[in-house]
């Protein structure tokens, strides 16, 4: 005898093909509204006495059970002796689900439409909430957000630095980015001394641990400055601004450290290969380490260059050589004809490392980095000269493209003829 296990908001029903209820396991009987929810998510369900009675009943009647979901099968399998098949698209389920209230009526249980909605809504909300909570605990989310904030903070600091130099430059223009290239030191000098007259070599050495020679140079520049004098209130405003920059710099440092720690623990191999910034960027572009691990290396290569990639696909031109991995020092410093080769190499290694990290494998980052550097040296040796572009272009075009080019050329020529004709007419 076939028994279809129908999952409903109020519990389990075992029905036959005609929709007659053979057995049931309903929450009303148990007085637990969230029963079904627990049933499907808790492994301890078989310890509930009424559920084991229900299972005994199933065993006694020797059903051929049909279930909708895999999870239901795995739940029942250890306790049920007969056959269980999974058939989610069976029409019995669809037909019987559509007159569920009537079926419940036949076994003497009545629920109004609103009550059923309420129960179903509560179950669904509860499941969704639990899953959301789970996803919130995922450390990928934190990395993605932290890397985004870090990137923005760096941008803010850079643009503020320019503005501070500009503003304080009216008072002390010699303190330029050539003299003090570090913005942190610059902001400290501004916030502590305000007026350039207050800057002395002794104070710089004792308060800011500046090297003596360097401090003397700053003092000389301060004494011979050509900057204008500012009022106290103007200088105070600049000081507050510089203090805020210092706060941002501190924040950036602590954030970077915490991201570092997370990445070292979560993705040791990628971290060794790429460093903090790039690892974080890759994870945030891929939207999680799990997705990065599932990506093909060719996808990783152009991650972050989606716009260029799709343009290339549409216009059938060459696809971009690199996406965010462009910031990797070896690629950036390479010659343009070597970059594509190196980034292809790197993306392959990234994909290996991401997979190892995601599945918690051994630490192989140092070996891979060594191998990479060796191969990059090889590439640079093999391709020291740029390729001859003209020759390559001819080879690259298919006959169809050639025809199109010829047609365009003709069109262009005819246009220019027309233009020249107009000009000649004008002259006459």
């Amino acid at each position, binding site marked *: 005898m076939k028994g279809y296990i129908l999952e409903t908001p109020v519990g389990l029903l075992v029905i036959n093909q005609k929709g007659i209820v053979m057995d049931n396991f309903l929450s009303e009987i148990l007085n637990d509204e969230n029963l079904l929810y627990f049933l499907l998510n808790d492994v301890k369900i078989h310890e509930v006495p009424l559920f084991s009675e229900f299972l005994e009943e199933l065993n006694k009647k020797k059903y051929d059970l049909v279930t909708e979901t895999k999870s239901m099968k795995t739940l029942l399998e250890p306790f049920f002796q007969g056959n269980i098949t999974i058939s989610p698209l069976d029409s019995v389920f669809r037909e019987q689900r559509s007159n569920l209230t009537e079926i419940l009526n036949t076994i003497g249980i009545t629920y109004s439409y609103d009550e059923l909605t309420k129960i179903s809504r509560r*179950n669904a909300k509860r499941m969704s909430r639990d899953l959301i909570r789970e996803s919130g605990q995922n450390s990928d989310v934190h990395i993605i957000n932290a890397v985004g904030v870090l990137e923005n903070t760096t941008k803010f600091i850079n643009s503020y630095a320019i503005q501070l130099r500009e503003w304080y430059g009216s008072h002390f223009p010699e303190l330029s980015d050539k003299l003090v290239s570090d913005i942190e030191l610059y902001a400290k000098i501004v916030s502590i001394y305000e007026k350039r007259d207050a800057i002395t070599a002794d104070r710089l050495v004792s308060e800011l641990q500046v090297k003596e020679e360097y401090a003397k140079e700053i003092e000389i520049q301060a004494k011979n400055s050509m900057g204008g004098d500012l009022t106290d209130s103007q200088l105070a405003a600049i000081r507050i601004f510089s203090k805020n920059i210092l706060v941002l710099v501190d924040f950036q440092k602590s954030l970077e450290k915490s991201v570092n720690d997370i990445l070292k623990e979560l993705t040791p191999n990628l971290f060794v290969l790429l460093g903090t910034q790039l690892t974080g960027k890759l994870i945030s572009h891929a939207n999680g380490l799990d997705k990065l691990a599932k990506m093909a290396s060719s996808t990783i290569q152009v991650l972050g260059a989606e716009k260029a990639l799709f343009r290339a696909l549409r216009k059938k031109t060459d696809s971009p050589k690199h996406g965010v991995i462009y910031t990797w020092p070896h690629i950036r410093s390479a010659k343009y004809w070597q970059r594509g080769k190196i980034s292809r190499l790197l993306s392959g290694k990234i994909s290996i490392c991401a997979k190892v990290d995601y599945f918690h494998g051994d630490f192989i980052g140092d070996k891979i980095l060594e191998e990479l550097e060796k191969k990059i040296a090889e590439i640079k040796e093999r391709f020291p000269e740029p390729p001859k572009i003209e020759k390559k272009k001819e080879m690259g075009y298919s006959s169809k493209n050639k025809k199109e080019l010829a047609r365009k050329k003709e069109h262009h020529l005819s246009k220019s003829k027309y233009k020249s004709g107009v000009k000649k007419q004008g002259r006459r």
Partner: protein
Amino acid sequence: MKVKSHQKFEGIYYTGFGDQYRLFTKNIDKGHIVYGERVLLEGNDEYREWNPYRSKLAAAIMNKARNIYINKDTTILYLGASSGTTVSHVSDLTKNTIYAVEFAPRSIRELIQNCVSRENVIPILADANFPELYAKFIFEEIHVVYVDIAQPNLTDIAIVNCKKYLKEGGILIHAIKAKSIDVVRPIQQIFNDQILKLEEAGFEIMEKINLAPYSRDHLLIIARFFQNKT
């Protein structure tokens, strides 16, 4: 400005004409708006503006859809509910249940917050590729399946869900985004493929509505489904 009820569709209202033509639905969740839309007060009723640039169903109505098959007695399975923009308007239209399925935890977080006091929306976090996963929440016959997912296999998802839940002769409202299926192939070709797929699965295409200028490269298909046709 006074709202008038729409000539064709029950529960939908409008104001103005020409460029100033705006769609409205009567708010069942008074005092709350969902996505920063404009609200008109009239007597005791609130009317929320339905933005066709944010909602594909509204865009279809603006582009003169003949029928949307959603009235106050319609039960809807809504796949790709996102943060609940369209869902909120649909829940204004119908008194029956809306099963709003969404896969991204980030979006359903907002959906739950938006639907706190909309009693007829059931927010479900599940993958629509496996319709049996949310069988335990559904307790009635589904009249309309609304599909708005940006996945390459969205038509397959729609078909599987219709086969599992949709009643005989029920309606599928299927929003296709050409760019999420293929970026290279011509758009019309992509649409034709999807339509063919639907017809092979036993759908009878009732209407095809291009959603330009509200959404580019989008097509809204309204089809009737017969379980036993294939």
